[in-house]
């Protein structure tokens, strides 16, 4: 992970760590904080705790997002302090709805300059964000909303498994990871498990991201904690709840970063420092395989 971040994430980059509740790569976020990257443009539908931590750590110049809360548990207070002008540094905001962010990744993955959607009429979002514009249908004359393509410098995707070439398989919630990866100049895949190419080839319909677009593969078990990895471990809801209290107090948040991010060398130490995470280990709900014969 250290090398992958050093090689592919640079100061000033537009960075995407995607994953909708599921498979959020905190391991990559923590390594970016440890390497003290600055002036990043952070993009995610839901900034979640990972970007709240990176904002407090001073990595971010700008945030591109659509829902900045602590899912089911409260606020992202580092984000709020910055947005309410009570934070240390300035944070530029570029705001959409979920559909708008998804559409931006779709345009990026198709290498089109924009994506059309029927959205935003009657809302104040276009007034708040001049990049939400309109396009006229050449067949009906109807006016639709349009958002610009998002083509990040680097996208980091966490997944259950990949082979050494980066052919990556994901199951459970898929979010916008495929679109974000195809939209990106560089792609880092972080997996719970490195598997032989034969495992991927045995079930090609499960492959979400082809190795041909992947620049680095990192093996990092528990790399998505406190979010989850279907079939590997559950979401650490207690930590999400605790975050409300930690992030509300900048001093407490700094102490958290010192102890769990700067204070550890890598993910293995983080897991140990967290007192082990075995209680989150997933139970078994195996699906049967299908026949690819002919």
């Amino acid at each position: 992970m250290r090398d992958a971040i050093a090689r592919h994430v640079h100061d000033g980059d537009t960075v995407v760590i995607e994953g909708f509740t599921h498979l959020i790569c905190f391991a990559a976020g923590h390594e970016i904080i440890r390497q003290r990257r600055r002036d990043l443009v952070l993009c995610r539908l839901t900034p979640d705790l990972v970007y709240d931590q990176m904002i407090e750590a001073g990595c971010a110049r700008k945030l591109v997002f659509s829902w900045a809360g602590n899912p089911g548990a409260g606020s992202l207070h580092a984000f709020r302090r910055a947005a309410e002008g009570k934070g240390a540094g300035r944070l530029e905001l570029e705001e959409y709805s979920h559909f708008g962010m998804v559409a931006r990744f779709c345009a990026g993955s198709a290498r089109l300059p924009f994506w059309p959607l029927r959205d935003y009429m009657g809302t104040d979002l276009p007034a708040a964000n001049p990049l939400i514009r309109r396009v006229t249908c050449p067949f009906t004359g109807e006016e639709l909303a349009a958002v610009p393509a998002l083509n990040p410098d680097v996208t980091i995707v966490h997944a259950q498994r990949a082979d050494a070439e980066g052919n990556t398989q994901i199951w459970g919630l898929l979010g916008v990871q495929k679109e974000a990866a195809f939209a990106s100049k560089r792609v880092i895949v972080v997996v719970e498990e490195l598997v032989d190419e034969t495992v991927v080839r045995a079930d090609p319909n499960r492959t979400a991201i082809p190795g041909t677009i992947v620049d680095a593969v990192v093996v990092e078990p528990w790399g998505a904690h406190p979010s989850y990895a279907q079939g590997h471990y559950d979401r650490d809801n207690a930590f999400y709840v605790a975050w409300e209290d930690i992030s509300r107090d900048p001093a407490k948040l700094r102490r958290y970063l010192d102890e769990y991010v700067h204070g550890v060398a890598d993910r293995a130490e983080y897991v140990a420092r967290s007192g082990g995470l075995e209680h989150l280990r997933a139970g078994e709900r195996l699906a049967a395989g299908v026949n690819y014969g002919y």
Partner: protein
Amino acid sequence: MSSYTPAEMMTATAAAELGDGEVVFVGIGLPNLACNLARATHAPNLVLIYESGAVGAVPERLPVSIGDPALVTGSLMVCSMADVFQCFLQNGRIEVGFLGGAQVDRFGNINTTVIGSYDRPSVRLPGSGGAAEIAIHARRTLVISRLNPRAFPAQVDFITSPGHVARGGTRRELGMPGAGPVKVITDKAILEADPDGELALAALYPGVRVDEVKAGVGWPLRVRAQLGCIDPPSTEA
């Protein structure tokens, strides 16, 4: 004393709005409870869809977020968020959407973005998430919020999710596919839109007086001539 809480009353009222076999865009919290109640009683074939991509979810535990793994295990389908918003929501396949927020105004517009000005907010809220498009595309929406004048101003500070008369005109004038908020379910009463789009008091919960409801909104609330009365939630289920 009533043997039920306002939350139970709101849940039961929301559940009663859901028809069997309908496709519902679910949020966590009270809407999730309402859907589970409806499935356990009169709507066993309700199809729950979450913006996270889980379709036909049958969570074995109370989901703590709309991306809870329990929504995936045993669901009918998991699809990408591009499919959720394009093939389901924008396609018109969602019959009911649930909405809530810090502010609901007299036309059913909802604010989940900022209190104060957008550039210098006194309180920065999470933002739209999928709420803007749900408000626009769901065939109809149910708004759930507790009554108090701060939560029900005459005008919201920011329109995140458009109601019946939004920025620039009515839903028809703006070409919104969905019918908008057909009911605003509060802890004391039900508000419904008059033909001109303004919310009016339509039905009271048992034992609630009209002036209590009027005191809970920040504008002179219209009161319908025929006021419905909502039954208390049954104790079974």
